[in-house]
Structure formats: C-alpha cells, structure tokens
C-alpha cells in the first residue's frame, strides 16, 4: 500500500556553503547507504532519493520542499541542516502532511515552539549541547561566563539555553558579544571577553565562526587567561582548528566515529564512500532513515500518519542510537558524549580528534516533552 | 624619384572606423622641411588621415612610410618615436594633470625640442596658469598647450589638426610666425586647416580632399591660378 508506487525521500542540505562538510553531500551518501542496507525496496516498492542544495537560504529550501511535496510526490524530507532553512521547510512539510527527518539542525524549536506531529529531530539539539558542555564546567567551579554568540536565531537559542543551565547551577553570565554570522575578525569580541573578568568564554556559534573565534582567542592570549568552551564543534571544524590552541577544549557531540567497534565499522564504510570521517549529522541521517523505512515496513503503508505513529512506537537501536527512544514530540533521545579535543601529541592521525570524557544519558541531556507538543 | 629627404610617404591608404570606410586610397608624400596643408570640407577625412598616420583609426591598409620605415603594421606607441608629433583636433588636454604636467608629459622623441622657458615665452598665458588643472584652461589656452606640448618633445615631423581653431587673431598671427620658424629649422609639417587665409601664405603645397580621396594637389605658386577650382572644392 504505497502511494504512487514508490517511496521517495528528498535530501535537503547545504551542499556548497559553510555547513556543506557537516551534512551536505555526506548526508546524501549516508541516506543512500541506509536505503541500500535496507535493500532498495520497501513493501515491494522502490525507494528513491532526490537531493537538493538549499544554499543555506530559507527561501530556496522552502521552495524546493514545496516543489517536492506538491509536484514530485516526495514522502519524507531528510538532511535538514541550518535551523533557518529547517524552520521554513518544516512549515511546508507540516502543511502537506509529510515527514521531516531532521538530522543536523541545532535549534530545539522543532520539538518545542514550532513543533509538529510530522517533525522528527534526531541527532542533537542546543539543549543537549548546553547540558552536556556547560553543566560539568559550572559544577567544576567555573562560575562566571562570557558568551561570544552568533547573532542569529541559532546563536541566540544556544546562548539562551546555556544561560539557563549556568544560572540553574549557580553560575552567572557576566556579558555577551553578538557577532554577525560569518564574522572573520573576532578580535574586538575577544577583547571584550578579556576585560569581562569571566572564568569561561563560551562560543555560541558554529562552523567557520567557531574556528575563527578560537583562532583570535589564541592570538590575543585569551586561551592562556581563561577557559574557552565551544558549545557546538563538529568534527570537520575541529579538524580545521589549530591543534595547539584547540587541544584540551571540551564540547558535546551526539556521535563520535571512533567510540566503539560498532561506530568504527559503520564509519569505515562511510569513509570509503565519502572520503572523510562522518560527522554526527551523517550518522544521524543514516540511523533516522533506517528507522523511517523500518516503520513503513511495519506499518504496511507509506501514509505519513501511520508511519510516524510506528516510528514513535518502535525503539531506535543501532550503532548511533544508544538507549534511545523517539518521543511523542518527535525528539529522539539518546546518549550524548562529552568529549575533549585531543592535543597534537595525543593524535594518531588527522582523524583522531576527540577523546570521550563521559557519556551523558539522554534524559539528562534533553529537556522533557512540552504538553502542547505531546502528539500521540 | 629619389627618396632622399622624403620624410613621409603614403601609398593607397584606406582607413576604417568599424564598418565605415573613411579613406579610399590616399597617396601623398612630404619632403623634409616642407609645410603641406590638407584642405577640404567638414568630414572630408582630413583628421582621419592624420589619425591614420598615427594608427589611431579602427583599421588601416596600404602603406605609410615614415623616415624610411614602413609603419602600417607598427603598434601606435612606436610611431611617435620615429619623430612624429601629433596635435589632435580636440586638443586632448588631460584633466588629471596640471598645465605644467601636461606640458612635460609627452616623452622626448628627439633631443632638440624647444625648452619649457622658450614655450612659456611664446605662450605667456600658459606660464601664468601653469599650476591650474589642464582642462580648466580656456578653449584657446588649451589649444596653445596642445601645440606647445609637442614642440617640446622634439618631434621633427608635425601633424597639426586645426591649430588655429578658437584662437584670437593675434595668436593666430604669432602661430604663423612660429610655423615659419620651425620650417626654417628643417621640421616637416603636415597641417590640416580650415582657416585658408592662415595656411595659404606659409604652405609649400596643398592637398585637397573630398570624400576620403585626394582630389587635387596644388603648389604654392599655382594658388593664384587655381583659386576658382579651390573655391568649388571648399565652397568658399
């Protein structure tokens, strides 16, 4: 009972912009792997994949998704990286009653403010990052915090969530500098951080912004004066950082390729196809697609309401999803990892980036379901 | 004919601006120390002839021999170094340079050009305004500057396009004297003139142009005899 004789998954990601390495082509590869591993067909119908570049623009992304669901019979949309694009895209999927398989977006809005019965949010979110990274540091006595925040929705959200965590645990925020997205020169903000008298400078930004802000921090001697915490550091970004300055910095991630044999096995296959080690979004995209296809199989139809119901009933369990459940609000809750970036002398090779400090159980990482988002 | 002393020789020169064919096979030659004028109505192609010699037209064919060098395939910037000085119709004063910079601009192509002092003496207006921006000069002053500029470069073949244009009669008179002096120094001059009264007494020969052809060559001593003919060509 498959509509129009096939199951079609659209992969929307940033293929050429700053997040291209984080999801981009790699997400397409991961989803292809999932489809192949699943056998290429479900309920006897072929599984097709289309992909598109959202260019990090909400208008482009939403237009593509609209075309897919209105004109090209796409059943679910995967990938989904930049929070701005995801926000626009999920408006369209929700209206069309199609499932959004969000792998790499950071915002927690898709299961809170903008929640929808058709949203599935897998890998991580800002709350998990803040809980994972900030709490241990505050507990360790680093009470005064300064933020260098990317001046747009994602950065504000991350700063907001982290601030809450800091305050709840007895710390205080002594200041924040809002840097426009894509700032290349962070020196002014670093100076502000320096004169703030904080214990920790938190980088509430992502991608190139994180790399650049860390670089300026080291240049102006900030790293010697205070701790720097990268709230969101993807493996490709960590690889791009100067190991001398980044080494020792701690952060939180939803997946690390070198965690155990299971992760290594999958990552090796991924690396053979893609060239680079998988970032957390890649693994999440694979895991989520697999779960989606299994749910179709189990539901006996590709009709969205039935599939999403099954997805929430079934327990995700694979190399990525540890101790996992997909909650009624669409949030997938699983173990997160508190990691430290390795110093140069600790590294075997360029892919040896993180060492896992501790595993954070999912219910400590993610916030509980909001009543208004409790879709049964 | 012996080529001794022949400074400029043009054979079958055709010139084009884009699609339009302006010169249709010009032949002329000028000997050292001669002052030759090009006469004709507006649009006859006199300025174009000068521009073609300097390789400033769209395309040209034929032969232009300067001082024994064939220049039809020579890039524009090499031609001046054969000793040519060109004073364009529209004067070509540079607004980004002041008067003195304009005057000093063209590189010397021969060593015996006139000195700046001599030139200032000849054109006192220029001395007075020497730090003024080039294009701020009055029309006539610009004309003086354009001429002075090439006299300084030491060129010994001068191509002068309408140099008396817009000049007060006193200055025109003085210019006539200057040209005669230059001729005495052995310079070769090709003059395009509208002001026949100015050109007639100082020229050795006249070429008359019409529609891109040379239609008549008149020696200075034939001028009286051919006045009628000239009038029909020039519509005087």
């Amino acid at each position, binding site marked *: 009972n498959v509509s129009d004789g096939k199951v079609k998954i659209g992969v929307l990601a940033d293929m050429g912009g700053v997040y291209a390495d984080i999801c981009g082509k790699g997400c397409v590869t991961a989803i292809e792997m999932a489809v192949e591993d699943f056998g290429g067909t479900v309920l006897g119908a072929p599984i097709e994949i289309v992909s598109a570049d959202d260019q990090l623009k909400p208008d482009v992304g939403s237009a593509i998704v609209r075309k897919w669901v209105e004109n090209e019979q796409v059943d679910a949309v995967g990938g989904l990286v930049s929070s701005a694009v995801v926000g626009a895209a999920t408006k369209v999927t929700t209206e069309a009653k199609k499932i959004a398989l969000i792998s790499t977006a950071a915002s927690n809005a898709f299961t809170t403010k903008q929640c929808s019965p058709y949203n599935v949010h897998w890998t991580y979110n800002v709350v998990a990052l803040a809980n994972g990274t900030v709490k241990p540091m505050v507990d360790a006595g680093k009470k005064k915090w300064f933020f260098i925040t990317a001046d747009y929705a994602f950065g504000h959200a991350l700063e907001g969530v982290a601030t809450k965590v800091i305050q709840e645990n007895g710390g205080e925020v002594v200041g924040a500098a809002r840097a426009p997205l894509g700032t290349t020169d962070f020196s002014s903000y670093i100076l502000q951080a320096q004169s703030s008298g904080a214990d920790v400078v938190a980088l509430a930004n992502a991608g190139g912004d994180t790399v650049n802000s860390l670089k300026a921090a080291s240049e102006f001697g900030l790293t010697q004066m205070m701790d720097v915490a990268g709230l969101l550091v993807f493996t490709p970004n960590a690889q791009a950082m100067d190991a001398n300055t980044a080494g020792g910095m701690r952060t939180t991630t939803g997946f690390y390729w070198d965690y155990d044999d299971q992760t290594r096995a999958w990552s090796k296959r991924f690396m053979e196809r893609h060239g680079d080690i998988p970032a957390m979004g890649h693994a999440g995209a694979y895991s989520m697609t697999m779960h989606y296809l299994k749910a179709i199989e189990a539901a006996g139809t590709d009709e969205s309401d039935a599939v999403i119901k099954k997805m929430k009933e079934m327990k995700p369990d694979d190399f990525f999803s540890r101790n996992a459940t997909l909650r009624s609000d669409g949030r997938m809750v699983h173990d997160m990892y508190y990691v430290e970036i390795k110093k140069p002398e600790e590294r075997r090779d360029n892919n040896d980036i993180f060492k896992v400090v501790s595993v954070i159980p999912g219910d400590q990482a993610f916030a509980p379901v909001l009543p208004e988002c409790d879709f049964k | 004919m012996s080529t001794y002393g022949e400074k400029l020789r043009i054979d079958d020169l055709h010139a084009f601006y884009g699609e339009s064919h302006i010169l249709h096979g010009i032949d002329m030659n000028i000997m050292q120390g001669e002052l030759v004028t090009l006469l004709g109505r507006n649009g006859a192609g006199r300025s174009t002839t000068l521009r073609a010699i300097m390789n400033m037209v769209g395309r040209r064919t034929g032969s232009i021999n300067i001082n024994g060098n064939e220049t039809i395939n020579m890039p524009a910037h090499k031609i001046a170094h054969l000793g040519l000085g060109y004073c364009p119709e529209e004067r070509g004063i540079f607004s980004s340079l002041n008067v003195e910079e304009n005057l000093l601009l063209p590189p010397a192509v021969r060593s015996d050009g006139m000195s700046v002092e001599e030139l200032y003496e000849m054109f006192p207006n220029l001395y007075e305004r020497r730090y003024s921006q080039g294009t701020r000069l*009055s029309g006539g002053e610009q004309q003086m500057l354009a001429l002075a500029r090439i006299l300084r470069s030491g060129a010994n073949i001068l191509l002068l396009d*309408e140099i008396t244009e817009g*000049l007060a009669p006193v200055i025109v*008179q003085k210019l006539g004297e200057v040209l005669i002096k230059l001729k005495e120094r052995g310079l070769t001059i090709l003059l395009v003139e509208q002001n026949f009264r100015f050109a007639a007494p100082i020229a050795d020969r006249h070429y008359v142009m019409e529609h891109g052809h040379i239609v008549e060559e008149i020696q200075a001593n034939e001028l009286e005899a051919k006045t009628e003919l000239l009038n029909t060509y020039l519509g005087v």
Partner: protein
Amino acid sequence: MSADYVLETRNLVKEFKGFTAVDDVNLQVTRGNIHALIGPNGAGKTTVFNLLTKFLIPTTGQILFNGRDITPMKPAAIARAGVVRSFQISAVFPHLTVLENVRIALQRKEGNSFHFWRPQNVLNKLNDRAVELLDSVGLAEFADAQTVDLSYGRKRALEIATTLALEPELMLLDEPTQGMGHEDVGLVADLIKKVSEGRTILMVEHNLHVVSKLADRITVLQRGAILTEGDYATVSADPRVREAYMGTAASEEQDRANEQAARDAAAAEETQA
C-alpha cells in the same frame, strides 16, 4: 539708464582659487540686438557665459534678466525663464529623429512631461509646429531622419531650431561657427541673422567676419574686464583692441573690410535714396 536692457550684469566677479577670471563686469544687452563678446584667449568670455547660465556660480555680483534678479536661479530654471544657451560642441539627441529633437523642446511647455501614464501620441499635436521650425532652418525634408546621420552644419541648424522652439527671449551662442568650413560658416551666420528677428542674441565668436557681419554691438573683454564697447567700426579701430586681440595682419585686413563695408553702406544708402 533708461534703455531697454534684456540682460544686465552688475559688478559680476568670478574667482577661481585666487585667480580672477571675470573681474567686475557690467554688461548691458539691449533688446533686439545681436551682441558679440570678443576678446583674447582666456579673457573670460566662456566664463561669463557659464555665469549667465548658472553652470558656474558668481563669486559676487548680480545678473538681471528683464530687470529681475536671476542670480540665485538654477540652470534649468534659467532656461525656462527664457535664457537659452547653445553649446560649443554640437548638442543634439543623436538617436532621436530630427523631428523628435525639436519636439522635446516644444514638449516642455506642454506641462505633460511627467505624465508617464499617457500615450506618447499626445505629443503628435506638436508636430506641425516642429515642422514649421525645421522649415525655418531649412531642415523640413530631414524631419524623419536619424539625427546622427546629419552633417555637421545641419546638426548646428537643428540645434538652433531646437533652441528656437523654446522661444527664448535671449539666446546665448558660444562660438557658433567654430570648426566649420566656409560654406557652413556662411550658412550659420545667415541663420543667426534670420532668427535674431524678435529676440536678442549674445554670442562669443572669434571669426571676425561673422562678428562684423552680424553684431550690432560688441563688448571686448580682456583679462576678465571690459576693455571697450561699441559697434564694429569703433571697436576695430581701437588700438588697444588691435594690440590685444586682432593683431596687425588681421587689423590691416580689417581696415580693408571696414572701408569696403563703409562703401557698401554708402552705396546701399544711395540706392535707397
């Protein structure tokens, strides 16, 4: 003074960075005259023109047009008031037809120039007047030609027709015959004479033949100041003018011409009598 002046300047001064290009000029142009402004190069003639049409702002002094102070007005406003200038380089709209060139000038008075919602053929009612004007300069047969294709002299004629369309009280002509062959010089001079009927013309001209033929009154400028004024005979007889402007050769020639003119005038009077 009680004479009827169209244009008057009072103590007009223009300084450029300490250099006085126009120095205390009191110019009076009588209605109906062709008034010529001559003088050596750099005397300030073009600058005076630029001041009159507000392409330059006077340092001090006043400009009166029909007794009204127009010193603070903008260039376009001056043109609308009736002072129209022709340019040294031919000023036409090359890719409009000859007729359209004239019509643009006529259109301004229609008051519909900002009407972007009306079809263009509301302008057709101006065509008759445009053709009339073209006819007056001998261009009627070229009405539909593209202006670029006209010869130099005809472009000048067109420009004058366009200027006439504005029905200027005062026309300012800056070296109208510059760069023209003899034939065209004659043509344009005749044209100026013709259109001077019923209006005033102020012109700058180096061609003394044209000046002698056309000008009712001449002002000679030197170093920014007025050297002398008068009709052609007076001015050309002035030794200062000869020295500063005309030069000896020209002057001799002028003397001959003056005599000739005097004889012609005498002859004309005789025939009239």
